[in-house]
């Protein structure tokens, strides 16, 4: 009872506070914050009102809005790497204030620290969020000199990978498919070129990268582990700009140009690997038809119609192509996004996004039509299209309400295939699958006092698996083994609901300021995922099929709590954090032992279900200023699964479980033109299943695990040092531009890090058994890249 009175009292006080504020004459100042050099909107700029001791942060479009009582104010705009900007303002009417900020002059004496605080790390409500700006990503030593967004985020706390060359990344014990990877708000289904060696994002076209590992705000949904929000550059609105580079793998070219007197601009960026071009003269005969390349094209245009309306359109198209005279294989993503930013009033901001995203692959055994009597064609595709309004209502300086929704339509074609044998053909295609996902959310970011702020929200997601489609019930004969369909199944007509699921997803974060440089943050979120990547291989493969939830496959659900301590030192030169988290995963998917996940009509019978848990502690120390910048990160974590019928129904570590993970990233500005950088990684070996016994059958020595265990061993640990040196050329390119050379060495001390260890019988003697260490990269890899800009 006492508690209830207290809560009521608190509510009354809050109400009173609001009323009290409303009694005065209030006005709103709002506007966009942009980069003076190229007109790009700046995301996450702190706008601080000195007199009111309050502030806001710009949204992903660079927009801010704040409502204050009539009066005189100083607005302080601050952003890491930019010069602080103070604007005096007499507020006696609603007002638009657009500002442009310039980057800090690149003087090296700048070790002297400015007096004001860039203490967003401590003050913001965000926790479990890592941002790396593209400038830093560019300076990190890269494999074969190719700057890469996804390989860079793997250096952050709580982020791991199953091994070199594996596609994607694992966040806090979640699998690769549980990350929502957004490129200008459109989901990217496969983030890799060449399996996992390079990611699909062209670094020259990327403006901002944000990884949300916990405390996921209510506007995001659809994947349970993390959000990787990649925003593309808008294009220089001030002048024409050309960027490019010639690397070991890719050649890159980016073109940006303003139009309509700076009201609009566009950017076009292209990359292509060119090993096949270089190799062509050396290939003979059939090999001449070998095709092997990957490319991507990124384009974006924006136009400011007037002060209240801005439109953006962006697109991505990328493809990997492998082929020989007898075999062709290609895959890739395509996305298109159109957005409209509208300012209804100074307080109400709308971003309306519509997108189309598609991932597909195609295999053809006979690309040159040489053997029409015997061939095989196979393709698979997932298409999603969506509309997504997001509103922000800047109610008071202390209450910022966001609300909106999303509708996604899924069209999945898991496999269309035709097999022709001796002139007779069989269509072995699987039925298309349909579904849709809707969501509504509302959230409030509330500052209760200088010391306490909250963000609370609720998302409701609703998914339907829709007909037409043939559905099956499955019969289990033995736990952990293949289940067989009860034929002929049930035909569900077009438009009818096969199965529907709804989930309430509460989100909550709290920041308790202990001092101006210290805070404690707490967060909780529930997330639901209706789309599943069926993949039983160590690294996901481009052939894996994204599968909708059905009557058999239930939505994956995660609950995560996180607690963190954040502290900045030495006037924000250093920021430190310690976070602990616990994550509970429901309806996780595993596979029967001889699972057949491709072109299998009854694939649901090959799936096993269970739950997961992941927990850990992340230690992070980052130095933001001075000649030497970089970070140290250490993660101690576990991620385990409990699947019916696997590992004797006991918990086992997930394939990507790595208890210890340490990374060090250092970037040292040696001279004005010369930067050295280095990364070091140490990680526990991933789990492996080794046999206990061998038995002889038909002249073969075969493995057997008497205890029927999964992941009962671990492969040796992983460690690697990379180095890079960036040298800016003295001479101006074409009199105006700038060139730089990047020399890099990957795996500097030549360690054969195991990707996996497996057992097999010796190739020459099938009765001799041995353990094989498989290293994806078994030597030092040096590279040179030349980048230019004019």
């Amino acid at each position, binding site marked *: 009872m006492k508690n209830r009175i207290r809560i009521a009292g608190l509510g009354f006080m809050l109400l009173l506070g609001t009323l009290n504020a409303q009694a005065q004459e209030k006005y709103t100042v709002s506007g966009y914050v942009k980069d003076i050099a190229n007109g790009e909107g700046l995301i996450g700029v702190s706008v601080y009102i000195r007199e009111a001791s309050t502030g806001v942060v710009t949204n992903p479009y660079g927009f801010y809005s704040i409502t204050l009582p009539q009066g005189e104010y100083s607005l302080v705009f601050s952003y890491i790497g930019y010069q602080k900007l103070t604007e005096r303002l007499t507020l006696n009417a609603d007002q638009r204030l657009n500002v442009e900020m310039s980057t800090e002059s690149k003087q090296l004496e700048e070790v002297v620290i400015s007096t004001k605080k860039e203490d967003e790390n401590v003050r913001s409500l965000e926790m479990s969020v890592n941002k790396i700006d593209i400038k830093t990503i560019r300076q990190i030593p890269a494999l074969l000199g190719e700057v890469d967004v996804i390989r860079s985020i793997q250096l952050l706390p709580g982020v791991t990978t199953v*091994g070199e*060359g*594996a596609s994607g990344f694992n966040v806090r014990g979640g699998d690769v498919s549980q990350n929502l990877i957004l490129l200008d708000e459109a989901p990217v289904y496969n983030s890799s070129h*060449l399996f996992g060696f390079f990611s699909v994002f062209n670094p020259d076209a990327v403006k901002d990268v944000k990884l949300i590992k916990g405390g996921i705000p209510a506007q995001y949904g659809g994947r349970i582990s993390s959000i990787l929000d990649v925003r593309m550059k808008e294009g220089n609105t001030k002048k024409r700009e050309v960027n490019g580079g010639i690397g070991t*793998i890719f050649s890159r070219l980016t073109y940006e140009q303003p139009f309509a007197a700076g009201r609009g601009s566009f950017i076009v960026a292209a990359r292509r690997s060119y090993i096949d071009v270089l190799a062509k003269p050396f290939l003979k005969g059939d*090999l001449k038809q070998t095709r092997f390349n990957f490319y991507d094209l990124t384009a974006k245009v924006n136009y400011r119609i007037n002060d209240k309306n801005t439109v953006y359109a962006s697109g991505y198209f990328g493809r990997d192509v*492998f082929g020989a005279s007898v075999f062709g*294989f290609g895959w890739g993503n395509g996305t298109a996004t159109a957005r409209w930013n509208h300012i209804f009033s100074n307080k109400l901001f709308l971003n309306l996004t519509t997108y189309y995203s598609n991932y597909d692959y195609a295999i053809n*055994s006979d690309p040159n039509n040489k053997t029409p009597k015997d061939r095989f064609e196979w393709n698979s595709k997932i298409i999603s299209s969506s509309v997504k309004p997001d509103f922000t209502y800047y109610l008071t300086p202390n209450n910022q309400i966001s609300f909106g929704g999303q509708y996604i339509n899924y069209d999945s074609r898991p496999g269309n*295939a035709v*097999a022709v*044998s*001796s002139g*007779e053909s*069989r269509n*072995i295609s699987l039925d298309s699958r349909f579904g849709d996902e809707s969501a509504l959310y509302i959230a409030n970011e509330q500052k209760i006092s200088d010391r306490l702020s909250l963000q609370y929200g609720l998302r409701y997601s609703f998914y339907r698996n829709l007909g037409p489609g043939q559905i099956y019930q499955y019969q289990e004969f033995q736990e952990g083994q293949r289940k067989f369909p009860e034929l002929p199944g049930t035909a569900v007509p077009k438009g009818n609901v096969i199965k529907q699921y709804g989930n309430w997803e509460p989100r909550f974060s709290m920041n308790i300021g202990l001092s101006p440089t210290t805070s404690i943050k707490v967060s909780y979120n529930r997330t639901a995922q209706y789309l599943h990547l069926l993949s*039983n*291989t*160590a*690294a996901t*493969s481009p*052939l894996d099929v994204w599968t909708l939830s059905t009557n058999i496959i239930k939505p994956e659900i995660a609950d995560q709590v996180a607690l963190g301590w954040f502290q900045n030192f030495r006037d924000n030169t250093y920021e430190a954090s310690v976070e602990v988290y616990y994550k509970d995963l429901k309806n996780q998917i595993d*596979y029967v*032992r*001889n*699972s*057949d996940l491709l*072109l*299998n*009509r009854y694939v649901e019978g090959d799936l096993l279900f269970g739950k997961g848990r992941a927990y850990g502690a992340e230690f992070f120390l980052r130095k933001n200023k001075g000649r030497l910048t970089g970070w140290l990160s250490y993660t101690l974590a576990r991620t385990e699964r409990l699947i019916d019928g696997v590992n004797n129904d006991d918990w086992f570590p997930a394939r990507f479980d790595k208890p210890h993970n340490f990374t060090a990233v250092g970037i040292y500005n040696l001279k004005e033109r010369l930067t050295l950088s280095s990364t070091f990684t140490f990680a526990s070996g991933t789990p492996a299943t*080794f046999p*206990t*016994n*061998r*038995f*002889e*059958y*038909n002249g*073969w020595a*075969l493995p*057997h*695990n*008497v205890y029927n265990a*999964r*992941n009962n061993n671990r492969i040796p640990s992983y460690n690697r040092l990379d180095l890079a040196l960036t040298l800016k050329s003295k001479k101006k390119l074409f009199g105006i531009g700038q060139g730089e050379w990047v020399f890099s060495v990957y795996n500097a001390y030549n360690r054969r890090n195991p*990707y*996996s*260890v*497996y057992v*097999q*019988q010796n*190739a020459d003697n099938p*009765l001799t058994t*041995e*353990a*094989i*260490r*498989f*290293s*994806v990269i078994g030597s030092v890899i040096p590279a040179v890249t030349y980048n230019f800009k004019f």
Partner: protein
Amino acid sequence: MSKSAIYLLMSLFAVSIFLTSCEDAIGIKTETGPAELVVDGWITNKSGPQTIRLSLSAAYFDNSPAKPAPGAEVTITDDQGAVYTFTDEKGKGVYKWTPKSDTVALGRIGGKYFLQIKYSGEEYTATNEIKRVPKIDSMAYKEESFPIKPADGPKDGYLAQFYARDFVGLGDTYWIKALKGGRPYGTDPGDISLAFDASFNPGSPSDGLVFIQPLRQSININKLLSAGDTIGVELYSITLESYYFLFQVRQETTNGGIFAVPPANIPTNISNKNPGGKKALGFFGASAVSRAETVIDPKKAKPKS
């Protein structure tokens, strides 16, 4: 193109062209479990003696020959009540049934077979059946050359294939075995070639078709043949359970690299009558066999397309 072949190709492309992947043998420590009885037996409808080998499992890295399991009572009973007794005359765990005449066969298409083993106080059983097998219609070969000279085998030679047609009716499964010079060819577990109807797996309906080209050509064991070679094929009809046993043998013995799947135990159809008793490993198979052979004659070879 089978899934594993695609993974193999992908891995090859992925790593060999740019990077320096490598594999080397290392020493690892593993636990060892208790030894178990291993049954290695596969009866057919071919005439002549049939053998069942019994041995014991050992520690995984124990590379000495498997210990034989002598002293067992081994019998097969068929669905018509006939009992076939297997005896281990040399005491080496090799149990043999020898017919009165060399033209007599144990197996019969459509027959069901029940294996019984009494060994060291335990009683093990297994059943299997002999399913129908189509005849091999013909064998053919054509000139072929590899773009580069392979490490073993010729650069220019002949690519052979056999033609046979799957029966109409879903779910016929086969084991395709290559012969060269009349002897088994390509006996590594990784060379096991399996067909579900006329294609690779149950997911791709191919019922009643001529075996698809990659299966027809699976008798080449990734090498070209030379003039004068005798190449042949034996087509074994197998049950679905046998198909999955062999499937898993192949998977567990070739399961490395970027696209490895979680290792799992190879299934067995041998069970102990006493569910709480000691377990056994291995498999009792039964097949009908059809066979064809041909000698590579350059004059009859189809020219290169």
